């Protein structure tokens, strides 16, 4: 399957997909190894490092850009993030990581209903124009 995507931050990445059933704040919600630690989050305990994270949007504190950018620097970040609507806080992390370190983590938007069709737990490839599985 292949669905069209709009890149907020470009690049290519692939990994096993994980679908988050609630929005996530990277700051306060994930630790330095890329694990969800927000006790209120339904997927608390899940590790996002190297995964293709499929979630509608980020949430909460504006410090999330730094936390995600640091995870990109230390290779603890998702391989790609597939959003249902633009989220500047998430995208900025990738833009800055590219400016500072030349590292790419694609952040893309896939409109509903296609966003809901992306399955969990399968190998997903993301580039600047599409999400494929």
């Amino acid at each position, binding site marked *: 399957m292949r669905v069209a995507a709009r890149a907020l931050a470009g690049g290519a990445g692939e990994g096993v997909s994980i679908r988050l059933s609630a929005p996530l704040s990277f*700051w*306060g919600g994930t630790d330095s190894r890329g694990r969800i630690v927000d006790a209120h989050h339904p997927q608390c305990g899940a590790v996002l490092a190297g995964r293709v994270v499929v979630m509608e949007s980020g949430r*909460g*504190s504006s410090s999330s850009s*730094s936390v995600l*950018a*640091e995870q990109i620097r230390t290779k603890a970040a998702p391989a790609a993030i597939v959003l249902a609507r633009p989220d500047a806080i998430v995208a*900025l992390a990738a833009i*800055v990581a590219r*400016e500072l370190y030349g590292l790419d983590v694609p952040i893309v938007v896939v409109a509903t209903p296609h966003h809901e069709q992306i399955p969990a737990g399968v190998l997903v490839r993301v580039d600047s124009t599409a999400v494929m599985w």
Partner: protein
Amino acid sequence: MLAGAYGEGVALAMRVIVGLGRISGAPRLVEITSAHVDSCLYHGRVSLDFADRLVGLGASVRVPTTLNVGSVDLLHPGLVRSETSQQRQTLAGGRRLMSAYLELGCTATWTCAPYQLPGRPALGEHVAWAESNAVVFANSVLGARTDRYGDFVDICAAITGRAPYAGLQTEDARRGTVVFDCRPLGHAFLASELAYPLLGHHVGSLAGAENPVLVGLPGDVGEDSLKALGAAAASSGEVALFHAVGVTPEAPTLERALHGLAPLRAHEVTLPTMRATRAELSTFGSGRLDAVSIGTPHASYAECETLAGLLRDGPPIHDGVAFYLSTGRATRARAERSGVLQVIESAGVTVVVDTCTYVTSILSPAARRVMTNSAKWAHYAPGNIDVAVVLGSTRECVESARLGRVALDDALFAEELG
């Protein structure tokens, strides 16, 4: 600016602003009158690498720029723990980062409540504020216009003096869309401190990224209550603007708050829901208490006075309880001049400035069970610093601290008679 005529630092900042403009579909940029920067909190090497790059490229801010909390209480550096190598790294990195932002020309305010300082923006003014509670306060209570900026963008907006004309900078995006009728809560509950963190958490959970409109708040509700409400709603949801009819400047009437359109949804808020919200925010509800942390977002001067009033008479704080108050250095200085600080400190409260008790290692590792009056602290502290938490009013915090165990007064949630 992009081409480097103002220097490479400005060009880098402009690339970030233009990149953001593309993401948010902005037709143009807008000039801003002030910035509030949250990027000064150390989140690892990336924070420092970015600031150092800007300093190295000769950038400095073009508009008055306040700074959010850092990782170090610069007035009491010993308060932040330095036993582990990670703590020492954060301390050293945090201190260097704070210096870098001063080199960029920002003011050493070190507070998450810049709206408590003089010179705050007026109704309709375009600004670029970061830190979710500051954003929601600026938009909702002051009626200034800021979108929800993440780290890096805030300082880039300050350096370029510009932000994308998108999101809450634009009129249409400020329309209230989800109505919360708070009238069933009754006057007594709505006059209480705890009503506002609880309402905020509840409203944020249901509103998500929408703009909530609260109906039925008392016309004289104070800024500290609105601060607590906004901070909680921005933590549990993505709320960056709320309207309170008859209270906030863009909501003289429900119709104006809704821009004359029908709301997407309407909810009624009841006392049982508020009682359940307290339980949801608390990971324990009785028994031993190790610490209390109040002042998230930073306590205002009025909140310091309230705390001093509660502490002035009565039994001392229990030996087993560490009591922390977080506030801004400007508020602390005012409290010192008036004598309020001395009352608080002589009661055994540790006053923390420039940072906050849940973003850096201040609490003792022995403090496992903590009470707070902040829904935001209750929401984040279990994940950030791995503590159990219970939400209570300032009065409940003081009473529990004296007893050394949690004492909650659930009479607040009883239905009013008549």
